[in-house]
């Protein structure tokens, strides 16, 4: 298991160990893009937006079947697959080559997501510190 690391570093590690994985975007709990291996900003936005729509669509389908929300999904096409994994409020979306090793890709995406350290919360100001500053 990898230790906590920078998001870009984790994605680089992911694409290094999993050559089937192509474009990757990590989305934070607030919906903002945390990191990606894609340079073009428009493409990153399109992937993040697509991930949101895929996740919402998947939840709607599962709800229609009386099931809870989707934790992960694979949309397989002849051109490749789109994987989406949600964990702890964060989401990772990745495109792959056609006919990927599904179990391995899910495992690698989860490992990547877990390896990314949580953004540090700003230190809380205390009354004492505020008074001293005044």
């Amino acid at each position, binding site marked *: 298991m990898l230790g906590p690391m920078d998001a870009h570093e984790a994605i680089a590690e992911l694409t290094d160990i999993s050559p089937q994985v192509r474009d990757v975007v990590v989305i934070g709990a607030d919906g903002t893009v945390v990191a990606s291996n894609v340079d073009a900003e428009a493409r990153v936005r399109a*992937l993040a937006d*697509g991930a949101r729509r*895929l996740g919402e669509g998947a939840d709607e389908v*599962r709800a229609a079947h009386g*099931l809870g929300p989707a934790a992960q999904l694979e*949309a397989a096409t002849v051109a*490749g697959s*789109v994987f989406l994994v949600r964990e702890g409020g964060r989401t990772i979306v990745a495109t792959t080559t*056609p006919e990927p090793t599904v179990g391995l890709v899910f495992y690698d995406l989860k490992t990547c997501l877990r390896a990314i350290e949580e953004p540090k919360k700003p230190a809380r100001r205390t009354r004492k510190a505020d008074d001293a500053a005044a």
Partner: protein
Amino acid sequence: MPPRKVVTGMLLAAGSLAGSLLVRRRAARRRERVDLYAEDGSMLSLADGTPEAGRLLAIAHELLGPA
């Protein structure tokens, strides 16, 4: 009919059957689908051709298109 011709015919038939099974299996694997997993690992698989899969596959095609 000479026995040799019968054996050749049977081998040819078996070969074509095996070939067609392989092609069918490969075609089935390449069929488009969406698999939705819950946190407990249970899966709901949507085969291509259903409206539910169509909507999600359209998004997937969009994301895979300009790669």
